[in-house]
């Protein structure tokens, strides 16, 4: 006789947008400050990037016959993050094409809904860089005030959106590596790329469900790699390429850190990813 047991609906109050909406609000504040302080064109770039991400996400869901869920805030967050990583003088087609590329390539092709092996924005920024629009001019991100990033990061951590432990570990290793190589510890701790990585990339859900230990390993490796990268000539595209590769390796870290037999785990996880790659409603 099978039970007819109904599960209790006692749940914590956080919804699926627990990270993306507060992070998007923070990025919007950054964009507004940058827009009114320097050039209002930044706001236009942001709006176009958000619309491109939302539109391509909606179109992708439509063609894949999945329920479109904009309420998780992921597309809005990615649009705003993309805008902040682009230069002020970028042509208007760049956020459009990059936004579409981010969602189509990062979210739809290389992943399922909310299961992204490559971070969509990192992919899009590298795409923009390959179009020659990165590195020539400073992105909005690089001009933003580190104090704002620290304040925003700590507020997000207080709200429960950001995990402070991997963020601080990353920043310590990043600045420590740069210090060992002869750069200033404090200056590296105030680098907007490092702060963005610490507070937003490391805490964003979506790259591996079993990522507690893997996330820490990701933070350690990313800290060391970004620290080394910043000792050399600064290049946003190269920093993001390093992060993209490390992030794609998180499922592998998950395998390596498993307490179960590695071969069994590898095969079951690989077959799992093949099976659920396009999971969704």
């Amino acid at each position: 006789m099978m039970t007819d047991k109904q599960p209790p609906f006692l749940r914590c109050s956080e919804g699926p947008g627990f990270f993306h909406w507060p992070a998007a609000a923070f990025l919007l504040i950054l964009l507004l400050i940058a827009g009114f302080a320097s050039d209002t064109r930044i706001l236009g770039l942001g709006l176009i990037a958000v619309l491109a991400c939302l539109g391509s996400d909606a179109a992708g869901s439509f063609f894949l016959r999945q329920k479109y869920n904009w309420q998780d805030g992921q597309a809005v967050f990615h649009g705003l993050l993309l805008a902040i990583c682009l230069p002020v003088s970028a042509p208007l087609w760049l956020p459009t094409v990059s936004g579409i590329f981010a969602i189509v390539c990062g979210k739809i092709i290389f992943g399922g809904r909310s299961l992204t092996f490559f971070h969509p924005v990192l992919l899009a920024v590298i795409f923009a860089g390959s179009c020659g629009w990165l590195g020539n001019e400073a992105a909005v991100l690089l001009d933003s005030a580190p104090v704002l990033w620290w304040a925003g990061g700590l507020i997000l951590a207080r709200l429960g959106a950001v995990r402070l432990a991997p963020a601080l570990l990353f920043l310590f290793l990043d600045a420590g590596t740069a210090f060992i190589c002869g750069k200033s510890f404090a200056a590296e701790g105030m680098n907007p790329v490092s702060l963005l990585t610490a507070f937003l990339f490391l805490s964003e859900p979506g790259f591996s469900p079993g990522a507690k230990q893997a996330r820490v390993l990701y933070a350690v490796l990313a800290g060391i790699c970004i620290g080394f990268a910043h000792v050399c000539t600064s290049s946003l595209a190269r920093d993001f390429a390093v992060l993209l590769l490390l992030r794609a390796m998180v499922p592998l870290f998950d395998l390596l850190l498993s307490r179960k037999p590695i071969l069994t785990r590898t095969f079951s996880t690989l077959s799992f990813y093949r099976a659920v790659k396009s999971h969704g409603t």
Partner: protein
Amino acid sequence: MVPQIERAKIPSAVYIPLVQAGGIRLTPCVQPGQTVCTGTLVAVAENEAGVFAHSSVTGVVREIAVFPHALYGEAPAIKIESQGEESLDLHIQKNSPFEWSYQQFTQIIRECGIVEMNGSGRPLHLRFSPHYDNYYHTLVINGVEAEPYVTADNALMVEKTVEIISGARALKQILQPYQITLAVGKDQMEILEVFNSKLFSLGEEVFKTRAVPLRYPQGNSGLLIEELFAAERAGKEEEFDAGVLVLDPATVLAVWEALRFNKPCYERVVTLTGECLAQPKNIWLRVGTTVEDALKSAKGLLRAPGQLILGNPLGGAALTQMQAPVVKEMKAIVALPPEHMRAGAAGDCIQCGRCVEACPAQINPALIGLAVEKERWDIAGSLWPEACVECGNCSYVCPSLRPMMDMVVSAKEKKWRK
């Protein structure tokens, strides 16, 4: 302070279910119209795995039919209408203590209908092999009540300290374990003090009392064994764990009453609680009392609850019918307000990893859930769902409202069936 236990009024009618945990069926041995006393045998198990069922009131058997059931939706049950006066069955009388053989003990606990009263409802005699082989080296009385809202065991431990110690002594006499440990949570030190003082006055030196960190789900037997015997079990975990018998205080008390008084298990302490109840309390309820009658004992509901949960609020069962009867394994009835609920359609997994962090069994509920959704039972089975302790943490923390625990449990059941 631990709340005290009240005694509920005898209900006008009780429904004794003819199905036990695990789907074990019972055959009624009474007829409609027959008069029964409190404690009279009314149904016997169809096979050796089941325990007997007894009337929990003095009255007349009215009907044997299908009635609502908390876990099965509907199940056959015996409806007994109370006559108001209480008279105990003649079999319930004082026995000479400490004179039972192992075989007598297993027979008594089966015939008295004793199950594990911590929520599983598994017949207790199934924990013992048919032939005595000194299987259990350690007996643990699990007084760690880490579930939110629930205080039934704590209240019982304060009110029935001597009886619980006597039950443990009887079990010690029969099972001959090398050690007996009473575990309570660290914020329940008053209970530990009560036990220590009673043990001192009784001159008991075999008992050890331990306080463990009170973090949910520390009351789970596997996790409790890990916490209590970390050093002893190092390197031989499976072998050691198999020799530890973990019983909750309510079961120990029921065992004592069965051995000492031949008293069948026809009542239990239930926590009636939740923000929607007018007067939350711990109360002795007769088995078979409807949830509606039980709630009246707590002066009813102040407002409509978002959900009524039977047992542990995180891992229990949501009640759909107020006419469902209280069963032996039901430790609490929690009336939670709508603001604590987040009902809605389950969304996609956003790979946040919160379930993995919250899982005390260190499995990956997210991956198992995704595999179960795809009906890839082979993959789900390879991710160790059998380690799940069914605490419900994963479901609670999931921001996408995915029924994580249910998916893991279904993977576990599928693997066991294979």
